[in-house]
């Protein structure tokens, strides 16, 4: 019993370690690719490591109270938890994580855990911009959740289950079995939602207050910032893995996972380079418009 538990915890830690490093490298390489697109040299691929090490090494000198501290904790726990509830590699005991805690619905709702905690912590900082950012982020979230939920429903209809492992299992056997082949419409809706979810252009107004040099990142410095940066890597990885599992046939081995998630993320960055930023009410209307219709179409296709 004890051994079993220790084994699982150990596996989970390994899995977590892998995804953290992968996530950091992914961010670094994407930043570099973006720079190339824009004609700059860009940062080294390992720059995120340097950032985290530097942040963590610094003494944090400012506190606004308990909730202020708990913000990054919530955020990181949210990212780690989200990843741990998703089976990362199909059929692998090492990367199975704690996916027996719950199905797709658990993952979808656990995504909110970190966001809610972070919102609370940032608000505690007492800075108005963080509240503005949160209000925009939450508002945009309600909108992009609609096409995302519709595509998830389409998946659930198609595979008659919400169990992620079972969904991946049903997509085995070649490219033609992937959701992206069997129900491309739903995948399109999901990918549009993904743009909103990762707050890349054109849906990046949410993080605009962070760009003004006095937003939450200023209030959150040193090791708190380090936690947030770590989370960014893990959370990105988790979302990518989720998308891969739902729509792109999952992964049977680590290299396959790396390739697939890299490509999914690539779409994201490319769109982000091509479009200007929308106001938050515009982006809400956008998500409730065409992507929702596409999502409904995806559901209908799944029903047929």
């Amino acid at each position, binding site marked *: 019993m004890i051994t079993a538990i220790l084994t699982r*915890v150990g596996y989970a830690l390994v899995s977590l370690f892998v995804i953290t490093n992968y996530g950091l490298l992914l961010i670094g390489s994407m930043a570099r690719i973006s720079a190339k697109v824009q004609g700059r040299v860009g940062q080294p691929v390992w720059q995120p490591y340097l950032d985290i090490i530097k942040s963590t090494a610094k*003494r*944090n*000198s*400012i*506190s606004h109270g*308990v*909730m202020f*501290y708990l913000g*990054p*904790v919530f955020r*990181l*726990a949210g990212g*780690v*938890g989200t990843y*741990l509830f998703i089976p990362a590699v199909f059929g692998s005991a090492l990367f199975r994580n704690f996916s*027996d*805690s*719950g*199905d797709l*619905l*658990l993952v979808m*709702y*656990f995504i*909110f*855990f970190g966001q*809610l905690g972070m*919102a*609370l912590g940032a*608000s*505690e900082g*007492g*800075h*108005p911009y963080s*509240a503005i950012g*949160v*209000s925009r982020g*939450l*508002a945009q*979230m*309600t909108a992009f*959740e*609609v096409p995302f*939920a519709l595509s998830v*429903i389409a998946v659930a*209809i198609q595979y*008659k*289950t*919400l*169990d992620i492992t079972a969904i991946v299992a049903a997509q085995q056997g070649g490219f033609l079995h992937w959701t992206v082949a069997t129900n491309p419409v739903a995948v399109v809706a999901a990918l549009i939602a993904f743009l909103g979810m990762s707050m890349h252009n054109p849906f990046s107004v949410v993080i605009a207050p962070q760009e003004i040099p*006095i937003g939450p990142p200023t*209030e959150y410095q*040193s*090791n708190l910032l380090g*936690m947030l940066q770590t989370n960014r890597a893990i959370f990105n990885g988790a979302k990518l893995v989720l998308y891969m599992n739902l729509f792109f046939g999952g992964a049977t081995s680590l290299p396959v996972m790396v390739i697939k998630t890299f490509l999914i993320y690539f779409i994201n960055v490319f769109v982000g380079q091509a479009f200007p930023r929308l106001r*938050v*009410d515009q982006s*809400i209307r956008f998500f*409730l418009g065409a992507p929702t219709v596409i999502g409904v179409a995806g*559901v209908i296709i799944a029903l047929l």
Partner: protein
Amino acid sequence: MVNPLYLFAASLAAAFLLPLVDKLGRRASLALVYLVGLAWLAAAVSWLLALVQGGVAQDFGTAGFMAPLAIVLRVGLLEAAGVLAVAAVGLLSAAAMHASLRQAPAGGAMAFLMLLMGLCGVILTRDLFNLFVFLEISAIATYSLIGFDDRRPALRSAFKYMLAGGIASALYLIGVIYVYRFGDTLNLDLAIRAPGLAGAAGNAALFFLLAALLVELKPFPANGWALDVYQTAHPGLAAMLSGASATALLLALWKLLPLFGTAHLVIIAGSGLATFLAGNLAGARQRYTRRMLGYSSVAQIGLAMAVLALGTLFKLGSELFLLAVAGGFVLNHLLAKTGLFLLSAAFEQAGLTDAAGVDGVDVVDTVDDAAGASAAAQPARRLSPLALAVAGGLVLALVGLPPFPGFWAKWQLVQALADRSRWWLIGLILGGSLVEAFYMLRWLGRLVAARGAAPVPTLRLGAGLLGPAVAAVALAGLGVLSGVFGLTGALDPKAGSTLASLAGEPWLWAPWAVAAVLFLLDWLPGWLKGLLALGAVAAFAWLVQDRLDGLRQIFAIMLLGGGGLFIVAALRKPGSRGGLHPLLAMVTLSLGAVLLAETRLGFFFAWETMTLSSWLLVRRGQASRQPALSYIVFGLGGAFLLMVGLAAGGFDSAGAWPSGALASWPFLLALVGILVKAGALGLHVWLPGAYAEADDESSGLLSASLSKAAVFGLFALVLSRGIPGSLSISLGAIGGPWLWRALGWVGLATALAGALYAVWQEDIKKTLAWSSMGQIGYIILAFALMDQAGWTASLYLAFNHFLYKSMLFLAVAGVIQRVGTRNMYEMGGLIKKMPVSFLTVLMAIIALSGVPPLTGFGGKWLLYSSLIAKGWYLEAAVAFFASGVAFLYLYRLIHSIFLGQPKLNQSGVREAPLALIAPQLLLMGVLMALSVFPKLLLDPILEITSRVFPPTLGFSGDALVSPLGYWNGTLTMIVTGGVFALCLLWLVINLRNSQGVRQFNIVFAGERPLRPETTHYAWRFFEPYRQAVGGLVRSRAERFWVLVGGGVSAVGGALRRLYTGNGQTYALHVVMYVVVLYLVMGVVL
């Protein structure tokens, strides 16, 4: 039995002696009046006793002869009761008019004696011409009494009355003589058997007789004169007219009923119903108290009249049944209206005349003219609690709320009409009743002065309160007696079990008993009352626990447990807090009663008790007059719908709805009735105001517990009562899937609209109110799935909503108490001042939003799993959107209150009092326990639902497994906890002597801010969101109901334009009324 002739002789002798006795002083002559009244009263009591003990109705001849040679008087049960009523009302009225009678000439006292005698004669005589004589005696006495104190308005209306009365008496004489011509007799009993009256000529003769009686009964529109009289006459006399006189005339009509054919009955019924509707509609627009009471009077008399005729027309039941129903209405009206008119007299004597001239309290809020503007203020003085209780009792009786006689009469009438499928009649009657309830309760609501504002002197009514109090006590006593012993139901042997009283369900009286005791003890200190109320709830729960099956046990925790929590919370403020504890206990126990009810009547009784007590609780709030009014009007409207639905069958010890009835519209009506209470979209307009304006602990009780009674109603509606341990649902009988799909969409729309409205509120309690509505929407949606997973989700959501909404309201009550405002943008940064409240709100919003690992996620998981499994995909997507929206207001809730910049003026704020903190801690504990071990809650729920439906959900180890997926709450909690601990550890390790910063140690737009207002971003927080999706929720429902209300009001306003105040117009109305009636009779024949 005493020969009534002696009493007539005595009355006449007294009247003749009066001028002589008056020489001894007015005191002596008034004593004579009381003496005669008492003599009548005593005689009536002796007759009643004799008749009840097995005596038979007795005829008394005059001058030694019997009919047809002489006039005959008959003393039967009803006659005795009628004389009793007349004498009692007479005595009360005389007492109320005492001062005026002392000042006016002796003729006033004489006329009063004659009025009393005349009315008794109307009741007792069996001779048609003698009836005329007594009618004229009472009419002339009334004419002279109206003007006896020489006030001009009274003189004017007396003149109008005489015009109408003169025409009526001419009609009566013509009728009588032709009845004699064709029937060859003036004796009623002989005339009933007279063959000559059967033909067309006889019909016409009878018509004249009837028309005269009807005109005296003040039918629409030939009743303008009566309204003026009610408005202007001395209130004591108005009481006499509305109570005693109407009773006597109705008894006269009842005596004559056997004479009449179908055509006559149709016109009686039609005219009565028209009067009922028109009177109430016009009354809704009335500004003056006594004129409003007048409108209500004519309406009630119209209803009693209609019931008498309808009973014979549709054979609603035995004669006794009819008398029980019509008698119930009459008795109710008699006592209530007498009491109210006397009360208005007491108001006048106490000087409550400032706002509206001679007329006591102005009842209308509109400020369309100068008078209205000045009158819109509250009464300048506050009624004493006793006076308020009396006024409340009288109005509630009039409106037909339990436990007063009108409630039982209405139930039985609706039941009987439903048995014969006369739905449109039910609609008319209940619609009229609703309008009446609206304006009467509005009036009552105005009597309650605003608390909290500048201290207002108490208005003591003194001796003037005696009469109303007697009437109120009599009403309550008779009502309880009819409820306990089924006085009205037992009269009809045929009706059997369906019309039984609450005899088998003594528990349903618990709210009333406890409230009565606690109100009597209301002078005790608050903490003691709170403990007593808590003890009462606990005792009730203990005593009834074995009567609850599994479903009811779960609801009992939410309803009774919630009530207990909020009673504890009521200890948060020192002082007596008059009325709060009794009402909290009453609401809580009425919720328990809803659970316990086993019969339809019992359920409806408990439901009405709940509606009534919660309305009182809402009205206790400070600025709650308008919200409370819309609460009770919607509550009663919903209750009426429920009543019709219940009357059509279902929810009985006998079983579920009749096969196929679930799709029928009576079922739909009952469903809609319950949805009103649940606050479903479109029927929700009462909700935000009521929740927001009630006392803070009351709002919590309403939102957390009382809304669950509506949820229970949904379950109870579909499930048969069943004995504990054998729930069953006749699935075959369930209405088409479209019904449940539609209900699901109603729930979904409610959820979405509730969430969206909540996003844009600035008022913290309104946010919570809308949020409640939204959450109930999910519960309805899950309920509508009609399978095991859906019902499991529904019950689970309901319990969770109870948990976290209790927590939120408790915490918010503390915040409001400490901060003194309900506007969120006026708060901020309270986390350091109120850490426990913050923690409560934090846990509650995590649970509410459905974020794992707290219990809320279980609800979401169950909901989406069951929706997708059922194939309700679009619903699932919309529900997902709606619960996303919930994040917005939840974040706002915690951010604007607890986070961000503290306000400077709130630096002295302390943590909420222990009375609020303790229940919060308890609930937090429960929430955590249920989060770690979801089985604790889910096992009992699954136990229930899998007995009703084929199970699809089940536990596999710690994981709840559905056909689509699984959820292991315990493991989720462990993983989340572990991860969180890990992250926290990292933080703690890295924390190195950081420095706490002061409030303004930030930079904002390049400068250091100095005032919190500039940095606490809280006002119109989600404005961009409103720009994006605000169009989804323009207040369409509000506008719709405003239109409905405006329409009803406009109809009422148009109707009352008939009453021009011109006596000739009124006389013309009388003539036209008779002509139209004659034509109608010709058509019906």
